């Protein structure tokens, strides 16, 4: 259960709205934390849901925030797109306190987002979600020929690799020449 504030860029969000918790609420009040991605939209996430992320879990343990401090200091993940972070937060909420099933039907369906999702999930160290995502990637090439795999996984051909290598060498040579020239200029 997360709430999202659209468009604010302030570090301290103004009261994020909270979706109702499930009927079987724990007796001890649950603590919440706040995260935002590149778009600065703040997501309120329960500590239970964040358990999935080894990175955030570690941050929480190390910082020892109170709820007030947590609200005032959302965890910033500037390298993660807002919509991707939303997917991750949704998944964490859906799987809060539940054993993760071997096949996950709650995975984001947009394949075009899969690459960014994988990077985000890997960064946030969400092991189960990473495994699900990797399964999706592996499934992409089931029964495919080398040519099809090359296209699906964007693997360059040998000729493309060689051309890229040549280009990289040329660039490195130019940069080295530029540095030498600059150094000679400095010496004068």
């Amino acid at each position, binding site marked *: 259960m997360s709430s999202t504030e659209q468009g604010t860029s302030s570090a301290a969000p103004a009261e994020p709205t909270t979706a109702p918790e499930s009927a079987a609420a724990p007796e001890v009040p649950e603590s919440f934390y706040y995260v935002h991605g590149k778009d600065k939209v703040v997501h309120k996430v329960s500590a239970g849901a964040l358990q999935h992320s080894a990175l955030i879990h570690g941050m929480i343990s190390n910082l020892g925030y109170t709820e007030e401090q947590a609200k005032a200091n959302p965890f910033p993940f500037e390298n993660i797109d807002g919509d991707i972070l939303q997917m991750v937060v949704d998944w964490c909420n859906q799987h809060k306190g539940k054993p993760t099933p071997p096949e996950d039907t709650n995975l984001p369906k947009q*394949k*075009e987002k*899969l*690459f960014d999702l*994988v*990077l985000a999930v*890997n960064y946030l160290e969400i092991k189960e979600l*990473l*495994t699900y995502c*990797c*399964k999706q*990637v*592996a499934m*992409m*090439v*089931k*029964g*495919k*020929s*080398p*040519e*099809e*795999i*090359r*296209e*699906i*996984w*964007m*693997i*360059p*051909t*040998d000729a493309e*690799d060689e051309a890229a290598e040549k280009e990289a060498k040329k660039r490195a040579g130019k940069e080295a020449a530029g540095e030498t020239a600059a150094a000679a200029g400095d010496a004068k």
Partner: protein
Amino acid sequence: MPFPILRTPFVVLSEIIDLLEPNEIVTASLCSKKARRLLKNHYQRIKPSKWRVSMFSWGLVDIINCTVSNRINVMMARHISELPGEAHKSIEFNGYKGTFERGYPTLYFRDHVFGTKMVVDYVTDLFSLDIYGLIIDRNGLWAFDWINNRQEKLLGGMGLSKNPTYVLNEEKTLDNVLIVRNASSTDCVSTDSNVSDNVRFNRKLGPVDVVLSDTNECWVTCDYLMYSDAIKLFVSDSILTELDLNSFLRHWRVGGCPRLAYLKVFFDNKNAYVVNFDEDLEIVETNEVRKFRVVAEGDFEEIEGDYSIQRWDGVKATIRCELGYFTMVVWHADKN
């Protein structure tokens, strides 16, 4: 939607590779030299120790992953004359034409033996594995020497297969097959061998680890059983009688066939049923159920015992008698 796999972090890439089946890895390795290098490096770091590479002398390479039921063809070499038309997905590797059908790549060569060696080398190099199993047909005896020269590790299993028909010819007798006497373990996976009439028991048989005998001739006699020093022995279409099996068990009890761990007799007469054992064999009825190792590591089968028999040194064996079958599993101290 494409997924730029080579731009993923190392941990992610490793996890994706781990989720691929062996045939998919071989196929992906053909995408580029870089892809092949990457996959090869992966398997040099994380050796797939439970995978068993088998080669079929007619060009097929497969991998058993943990259990024999999980067996996957990964690559094949065929003669250029078998190259199909354009309807198939075509591939090219090192200048050789190929197709991609049935989930694995097939390459076509003018010299089929050369091609077979090449695809086997390709797969074993990719996974940093030795050849574990060998299945040969009538034209495949070259594979023994080739394997013995290319790797130090001994074969884990071998089989004779009729593809289309296995017949040992005049020059190549059963003695040639006995090259596998050096086999280091007890595994074998092939069935349906069909040895010609030319090959008969000559008292030289053994110590082969696994013997598959599938014949409608009567050369698999009680003598054959007694003198075949195999660990696993499969006899198909057998005309062995109750009397023969009693004699064999008597021989075993006093220390004959000491290495035998598994004997399976498939009777030619599907209604054959062994029920009468001689008293001196001291066979006792049992209903114990025990597991034993069949082929690859982790691949277990269960035997529901009907009878138990004990050797002079205390080693026990369980016997199962079914309509058309006779099975015996010996419980060696090394747990088979």
